[in-house]
């Protein structure tokens, strides 16, 4: 069994706790000095950095939220001068306003090491060709995988996302052995490879798939179609990017890089920490990150943690696949979609469109389908066929440019969108993910 950083990955649990306590004290102390919002929240609770002596005191600390990133956009939560920030990444927010995060040299080193751990765990080394099919850009996926590949000394193929035929030809010509992309894109690649009849020309042995929810059935299909072993990876830009946690060779839950991130499971309503093994909202504290650290960040992902020692020998806690979210965010074809974005588009489209809508998400042939039902109004109908078609086309285009993916817009009867207690049911997610 190969391990990238045995000193951390195999550290006995008591020692992990000591290490985390030390790092937490350091982080709280420096953030209290440099991050205004954190200091304000500590003061509101009557807390001083010296009140935090270790991991046992973590639960006393104030939470942080996605909204904070918007309120302090762009650099208001950074904990170092911008001269020490070496790179930024961004992700889309609910109302089209993106959030931005920054990394120091040490942060980028740490991130590369976290991704490297996963590559090593799935059997990659310096002889491998890592095919980076995540978008290389402000999105964290591409650079995370790229830096990890470079870190272990493998050959990185930074092909980025899109152009499926070229992806496959490159895999064949360059001899890609490890594929990194979203699971739905992996499914699609598998289908095209099948059509082209080139499976036997591929050298893929492992796939690292993340950034959207996927099922065990999908895993089996991807493994069959691409002839590789498929592994799950978890991450979010706010905390770091891909590699916050990852599956090892045993594919039985994702090891959290606990020397950098402390996970907690809380009751999303009360904020109380739940007993070990409970399902609840996942919260992360970054204890080594310098540029953009967060204390007790509410991920909104619902999952549980398993502290049993893994067969691979790694002592880091395993989180299971997130089972859902506490807010109404949807992940459709790898893209974050908030119902409020759709409402905003409908409100801004003007004229005779009512903001009564319903989102219907389903999955056909392992690809997400996305439909938005909009209620017809008297005034819109009076515009006649041409007017109606012009309006639906406009809605569709605006949604595409706002969300990054285009839904099918369907006009339905007025008042036909189900309302319970006066509040419409906005989302129908028919995808069955286990």
């Amino acid at each position, binding site marked *: 069994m190969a391990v990238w950083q045995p000193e951390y990955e195999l550290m006995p649990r008591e020692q992990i706790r000591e290490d985390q306590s030390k790092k937490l004290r350091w982080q709280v102390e420096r953030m209290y000095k440099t991050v205004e919002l954190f200091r304000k929240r500590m003061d509101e609770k009557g807390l001083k950095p010296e009140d935090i002596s270790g991991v046992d005191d973590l639960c006393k600390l104030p939470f942080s939220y996605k909204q904070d990133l918007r309120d302090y956009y762009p650099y208001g939560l950074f904990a170092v001068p911008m001269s020490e920030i070496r790179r930024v990444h961004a992700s889309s927010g609910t109302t089209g306003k993106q959030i931005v995060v920054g990394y120091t040299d040490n942060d980028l080193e740490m991130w590369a090491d976290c991704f490297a751990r996963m590559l090593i765990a799935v059997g990659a080394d310096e002889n491998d060709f890592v095919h980076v099919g995540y978008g290389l850009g402000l999105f964290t996926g591409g650079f995370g995988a790229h830096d990890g590949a470079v870190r272990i000394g493998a050959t990185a193929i930074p092909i980025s996302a899109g152009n499926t035929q070229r992806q496959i030809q490159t895999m064949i010509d360059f001899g890609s052995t490890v594929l990194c992309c979203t699971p739905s894109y992996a499914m699609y690649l598998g289908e095209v490879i099948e059509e082209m009849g080139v499976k036997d020309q591929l050298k893929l042995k492992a796939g690292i798939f993340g950034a959207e929810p996927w099922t065990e059935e999908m895993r089996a299909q991807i493994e069959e179609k691409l002839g590789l072993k498929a592994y799950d990876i978890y991450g979010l830009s706010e905390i770091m990017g891909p590699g916050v946690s990852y599956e090892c060779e045993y594919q039985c839950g994702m090891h959290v890089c606990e020397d950098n991130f402390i996970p907690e499971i809380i009751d999303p309503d009360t904020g109380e920490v739940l007993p070990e093994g409970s399902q609840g909202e996942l919260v992360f504290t970054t204890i080594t990150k310098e540029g953009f650290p967060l204390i007790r960040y509410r991920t909104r992902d619902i999952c549980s943690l398993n502290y049993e020692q893994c067969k691979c020998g790694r002592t880091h806690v395993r989180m299971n696949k997130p089972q859902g979210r506490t807010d109404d965010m949807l992940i459709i074809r790898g893209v974050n979609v908030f119902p409020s974005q759709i409402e905003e588009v409908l409100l801004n489209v003007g004229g005779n469109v009512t903001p009564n809508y319903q989102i219907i998400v389903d999955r056909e042939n392992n690809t997400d389908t996305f439909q938005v039902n909009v209620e017809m109004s008297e005034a819109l109908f009076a515009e006649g066929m041409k007017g*109606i078609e012009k309006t639906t086309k406009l809605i569709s285009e605006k949604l595409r440019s706002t969300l990054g993916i285009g839904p099918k817009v369907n*006009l339905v009867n007025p008042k036909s969108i189900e309302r319970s207690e006066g509040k419409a049911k906005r989302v129908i997610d028919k995808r069955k993910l286990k």
Partner: protein
Amino acid sequence: MFIKQLSVFVENKHGRLQAIIDKLSENGVNIRALSIADTTDFGILRMIADDNEKAKGVLADAGVISTSTDVIAVYIDDKTGGLAQVLKIVTDAGISIEYMYAFLGRKEGKALMVLKADNEPLAEKVLSENGIALANPDEL
């Protein structure tokens, strides 16, 4: 002479047309002519009812969206070339037809066409000048 046509929004959903027609029949509305236009996403039912106002009221009560439009109902000779003669008059006057559909006529030897033109008053004028009979609402 214009007559009132009702355009009804029909959601693209199984049984939707049936529900609309049932509602009208339950309330004693007689449909004299109808046509359905479909797009990929929804349909528009256009119809001439014996009582336009009543039909509109019945549909509104049932939560169905409809709008009234003025159209022309033209008598044409029920023989080859009958429609062609009428269309020529309209076309020569520079008028475009948005849509048209046939009607259940009550006059022997005559067929009725419902016609929606981009310039309705002009269409009415040129047809009358050329001796083409238009239907009155009370003839329907």
